[in-house]
């Protein structure tokens, strides 16, 4: 299969594989598109392409394009039937070969250009996604691009943006995020607004890359190149020095204003499955230029109860970033998984059995100290590596039987926490402060294997290999189905 240069080729392929529905009925951008995409997420239905959007002739909306593992596999050029483990292997192996982007003179994303008085965000089909949201969220499946003024580092991140007026948007750009650091540490002290470009409807690997919590200083566009196995083509913005993928459907160029011009933003239904953060004073993005392709396609996600695009992608990307982090420190980790129904809050780690005492502590400390997994992850379950961590039944069995209720639960108090965490009190949310917990479901390293560790009564553990193979080879002869 191909790796897609844009969502147009992705749409064609998804339609052929039965992973896309073209919706010809007129759909209202005011909640109806949101309601449909929410149900699509909750039923793992094909991605909807709304071809007839009320009030916005000429525009199409593509809903929750990567909200299940099939479509995420397709974004990497894999067959949609590729199993999760293989998707993870491919993603992990490609990540190692980051590829720098190339600059091109022009791109379809600038086929239409609006500046000055022609800038009007209300001319774009930004949906009202959830009833009660603070506004029309124009940026839910996208990248906000900004540059560190003191280095070459450019950050792409999926920071939400909501329309206030024809040329202003609000956003949630928290100080502990990459872009929050750039804004609050580099631009605000100098009294300068931060140039930004929001790219909506990039090539699918770019959206994946914008969502990954990468280690400090690693370029998202180079990761996107790695996932695509060729350079991403970038074109310079019309009104600032930032670069956007040339095939992007819609680009908003502008500057993030200084905090004295903060405006109310939110609330918004988020990836946690709740609308947690209240309306509050938050940064303002002033839009100076809008560019888009001919016959544009607007991409949207509908964050909420899993599985949405975030949960589908992060089960692979966040897990493998954490695995890399732990392995780079030499920790005895075999696999890491972020089950989609645990969103990013729950991380399951398989540990090589009986290596050294309290290895799980080491793991918990590193995960909770990671710059992005730290705030966004609250619960780590460490299990021995005889547990298939992709099988929740096995994880629950280990959790129920190997977790010592007195010695195995380790609480980390007063840690940085994302204010979107639903369980936080109002005060904790205001301070971005919360707690973490490690459930150590591994056997203690000082237990002797044959005298203290209880043998596991599982087919794979208690019978000889010869007998297992005999039973498996004769399984259907016994009268059972494969």
């Amino acid at each position, binding site marked *: 299969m191909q790796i897609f240069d844009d969502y147009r080729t992705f749409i064609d392929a998804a339609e052929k594989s039965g992973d896309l529905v073209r919706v010809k009925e007129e759909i209202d951008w005011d909640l109806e598109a949101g309601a449909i995409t929410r149900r699509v997420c909750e039923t793992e239905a094909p991605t909807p392409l709304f071809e007839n959007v009320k009030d916005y002739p000429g525009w199409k909306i593509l809903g929750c394009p990567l909200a299940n593992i099939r479509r995420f596999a397709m974004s990497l050029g894999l067959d949609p039937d590729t199993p999760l483990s293989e998707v993870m292997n491919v993603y992990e192996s490609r990540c190692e070969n980051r590829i720098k982007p190339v600059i091109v003179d022009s791109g379809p994303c600038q086929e239409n250009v609006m500046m000055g008085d022609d800038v009007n965000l209300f001319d774009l089909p930004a949906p009202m996604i959830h009833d*009660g949201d603070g506004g029309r969220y124009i940026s839910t499946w996208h990248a906000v691009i900004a540059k560190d003024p003191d280095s070459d580092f450019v950050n792409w991140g999926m920071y939400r943006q909501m*329309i206030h007026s024809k040329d202003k948007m609000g956003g949630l750009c928290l100080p502990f995020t990459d872009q929050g650091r750039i804004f609050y540490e580099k631009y605000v002290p100098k009294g300068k607004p931060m140039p930004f470009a929001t790219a909506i409807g990039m090539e699918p690997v770019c959206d994946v890359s914008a969502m990954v919590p990468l280690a400090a200083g690693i370029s998202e566009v180079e990761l996107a190149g790695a996932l695509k196995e060729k350079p991403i083509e970038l074109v310079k913005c019309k009104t600032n020095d930032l670069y956007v993928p040339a095939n992007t459907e819609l680009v908003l160029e502008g500057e993030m204003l200084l905090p004295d011009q903060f405006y109310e933003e939110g*609330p918004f239904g988020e990836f946690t499955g709740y609308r947690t953060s209240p*309306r509050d004073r938050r940064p303002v993005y002033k839009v100076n230029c809008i560019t888009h392709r001919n016959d544009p396609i607007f991409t949207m996600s509908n964050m909420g109860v899993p599985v949405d695009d975030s949960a589908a992608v992060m089960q692979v990307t966040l897990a493998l970033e954490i695995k890399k982090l732990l392995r780079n420190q030499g920790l005895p980790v075999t696999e890491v998984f972020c089950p989609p129904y645990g969103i990013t809050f729950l991380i399951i780690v398989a540990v090589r059995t009986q290596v050294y005492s309290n290895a799980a502590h080491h793991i918990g400390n590193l995960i909770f100290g990671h710059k992005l997994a730290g705030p966004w992850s609250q619960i780590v379950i460490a299990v021995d590596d005889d547990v298939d961590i992709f099988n929740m039944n096995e994880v629950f069995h280990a959790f129920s039987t190997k977790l010592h209720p007195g010695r195995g639960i380790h609480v980390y108090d007063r840690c940085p926490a994302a204010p979107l965490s639903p369980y936080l009190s109002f005060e904790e949310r205001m301070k971005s402060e919360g707690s973490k917990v490690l459930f150590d479901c591994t056997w203690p390293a000082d237990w002797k294997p044959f005298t203290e560790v209880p043998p596991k009564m599982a087919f794979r553990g208690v019978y000889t290999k010869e007998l297992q193979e005999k039973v498996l080879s004769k399984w259907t002869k016994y009268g059972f189905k494969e």
Partner: protein
Amino acid sequence: MAKEYDTYVDDPTDFKIKEAEMDMIIRDLTPDNRREKYGSRRVRAVVMPKPEAGGDVLYLRYQRGSLYPEKFGIKILG
């Protein structure tokens, strides 16, 4: 034609007792151009416990978006 707006407040029941003049940010729910629905602006306004006959209506939402079931009146001063 009466206009409809909404805004987000900590406790809508505070506004059931008496009129209050205040600066606030409102969202336009009935703009002339439907594309501009939910656009917001800062105004000075009087909020009334009930809408006046034929007057503009204000809906109140809690800070996390839930809609308070009763309507209020609003007079925008500028």
